[in-house]
């Protein structure tokens, strides 16, 4: 029974840490499927987290915080879009630039506005997302097996957690069952086909980039308004890159993305759980090694265990009409 509770606890924290990965990886899905690679998920998420923390602290409203996160993230997306779609610049350079600018400016602005060493003030009450408790969660808590699953694993998460998981089938539906999705996937494979069909490649790609911005906004808001109570400098801690890895690992498919993010989340949760606890047979494992585990696994998996991940054919290449 002790073991069962441990498992439930690890899975519960798996879900908790997977949520920002799911938001960010789905964000990447929209833009990369449209042919715009985005290494700047990390920066957008961080910028959104800061905007959420700052605005929620000032207004005391979690909704205002969320909206600010989305706004900032979409603006950063548009910068990336302008550089890579309109100006046909390098998508990698633009993404990296955004990451650096955000990493620096959030700290500077945070210090200038709140004077707490780059943090935003701690949030409480309406300025923060509250957990949702399912009906009868308390009542069935002590029922064996089902109780912990229902009350601890399924119930008691933030609203954004449920939003993230609902976005998975929704993204699938958008991409594979709507006209917008068909065109979006087409523009990532052969923008010429879209252009000659009389659809604007530029506008289509901008819309994809905006979708990416909105989803990164959710990811950032989750970090500073739900998972933590406020913004801390560098709080994304590489999650944007892990989301990118999950996206590739999942071969740019929505349901695979969710599974990949849960796997990475699970490793993260496991690493936290095992800190300080000796493993049977192996003994004490250095904390650093445990923390590195998700990254090591990413490298191994991407190095060939998942077969060839074929990116959208026109990905990374600015569209220029043939001369």
């Amino acid at each position, binding site marked *: 029974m002790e073991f069962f509770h441990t498992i439930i606890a690890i899975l519960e924290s798996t879900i908790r840490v997977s949520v920002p990965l799911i938001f960010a990886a789905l964000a990447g899905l929209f833009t990369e499927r449209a042919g715009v690679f985005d290494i700047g998920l990390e920066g957008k998420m961080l910028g959104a987290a800061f905007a959420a923390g700052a605005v929620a602290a000032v207004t005391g409203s979690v909704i205002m915080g969320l909206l600010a996160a989305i706004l900032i993230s979409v603006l950063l997306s548009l910068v990336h879009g302008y550089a890579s779609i309109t100006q046909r610049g390098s998508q990698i350079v633009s993404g990296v630039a955004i990451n650096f600018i955000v990493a620096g400016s959030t700290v500077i602005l945070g210090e200038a506005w709140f004077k707490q060493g780059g943090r935003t003030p701690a949030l409480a009450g309406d300025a923060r997302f509250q957990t949702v408790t399912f009906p009868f969660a308390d009542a069935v808590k002590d029922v064996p097996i089902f109780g912990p699953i229902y009350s601890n694993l399924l119930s008691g998460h933030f609203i954004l957690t449920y939003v993230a998981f609902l976005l998975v089938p929704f993204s699938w539906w958008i991409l594979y069952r709507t006209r917008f999705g068909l065109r979006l*996937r087409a523009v990532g494979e*052969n923008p010429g*086909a879209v252009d*000659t069909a*009389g659809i604007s490649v530029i506008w289509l790609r901008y819309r994809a980039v905006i979708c990416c911005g909105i989803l990164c906004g959710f990811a950032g808001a989750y970090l500073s308004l739900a998972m933590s109570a406020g913004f801390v400098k560098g709080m994304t801690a590489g999650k944007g890159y892990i989301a990118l890895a999950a996206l590739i690992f999942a071969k740019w498919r929505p349901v695979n993305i969710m599974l990949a993010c849960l796997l990475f989340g699970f490793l993260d949760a496991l690493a936290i759980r095992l800190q300080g606890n000796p493993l049977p047979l192996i003994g004490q494992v250095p904390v650093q090694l445990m923390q590195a585990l998700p990254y090591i696994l990413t490298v191994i998996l991407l190095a060939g265990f998942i077969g060839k991940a074929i990116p959208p054919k026109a990905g990374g290449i600015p569209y220029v009409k043939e*001369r």
Partner: protein
Amino acid sequence: MSDIAIELRGIDKSFGLVHANKNINLTVRKGTIHGIIGENGAGKSTLMSILYGFYQADSGDIVVDGNKVTIKDPNAAIASGIGMVHQHFMLVENFTVLENVMLGAEDSQILNTSISKARVELKRLEKEYALEVNPDALIEELPVGLQQRVEILKALYRKADILILDEPTGVLTPPEADHLFRILGQLKDQGKTIIFITHKLREIMAITDEVSVMRRGEMVATRHTKETSVEELAELMVGRRVLLRVEKGAANPGEVKFAVENLTVRDGRGVTMVDNVSFNLRAGEIVGIAGVAGNGQSELLEAISGIRKAVGGTVLLNGKPIDVTGHVDPRELRDRGLAHVPEDRHHVGLVLKFEEAENGILGYHHDKRYLNGVFLNTKAIQADAEEKIKKYDIRPPNPRLKTANFSGGNQQKIVLAREMERGPDVLIIGQPTRGVDVGAIEFIHKRIIEMRDQGKAVLLVSVELDEIRALSDRIIVMFAGRVVGERDPDATEGELGLLMAGVEGRKDAAE
């Protein structure tokens, strides 16, 4: 209603300093097939792109069906009833036929309803025009001929009355091309107007009613096809008299210089591209390898020139083996008397950002003639380049000009000069005249025959059947990686065409 489908009046277009279209006038009658012919860079594609709304003309009017129209994007072209089949298909390869056909012409936000409507309409079009294709097949699984059919269906689905086909036969086998011509004839019978762009004179004579000739951005003439001849059109295209048939004497084959036995090559995915191929080359003969692009010719060339490793087989150069399955060094092959003019001059044959003179010694840059100790002897290189420029009539005659700024024909001459002037025993040439204009083709063909007459063994790989027939002393046909037959150069086009399509091959192999 007028009987004129499209009229272009004074169309003018410049890209920077390049004047691509100069005051073009063109009248295309309804229900006809109108050919537009011209060399590469004559401005055919630019003109059609203007008609399809890809570019805007700097000045001039477009009149469709008697109404003056402004075509600011492909949407406007589609709305005017103009459809285009592009040279490089504008298809999404991992989409189905149906998805490709309806892309951009979906009639609702949700796909399900559009798909069922499109399916019905596609079935109707397939019946009406006898253009069968499985709507649920993925494009990447279809042969090129069918992919092109999807492009035509795409245009018809958008209710096009005027169809523009840009170099449609480049990727087709002769039987596929014949099939396309039958389809076009049928579309014409049903009242569609077809604009057919090509640089192949034979095709113009075969299917068009009228033909307009472009040269250096100008429309130089329009003729009724019945009242003109291949010779006249060629002269109009180039601006001077051209020799269409290469003059060549009988071959005088000597000893075997190059022998390939049971060569097998796989590509990066492990697919067998060259399957147990054997042949030999004698001194003083040209052996042509015919075949539709993608049937293993490229891999064969790469393997025997040391660029790609083979998985099996032996190759003898001047009687001594080349380690094709192990370590082959293209430089060593050059030293042993093998020269290679690669198919893809832009990526393999030249460094486009280098100057002409630099490209002229590429691969031979370690030769003492071009060196001053460890440094390049720029004077010698310059002198060498100037000599080749003169001999090969490379224009503009400037060895310091970046290679990217030469036309396709002149770039090819740079590669040919480099490889031929070494006096190799064996010369391997891939697609000698791809993207090369008629005037330069004549020159290149003459040089190849000169090489033969000097006693060199020449292997010629080309997807242009006319070229293979004109130059070769023996013709080998490849299909699906195998040699499916060997013929004399006087074999008929039909016979070779069937071999290239793999129809006759099985019978041959069984014999």
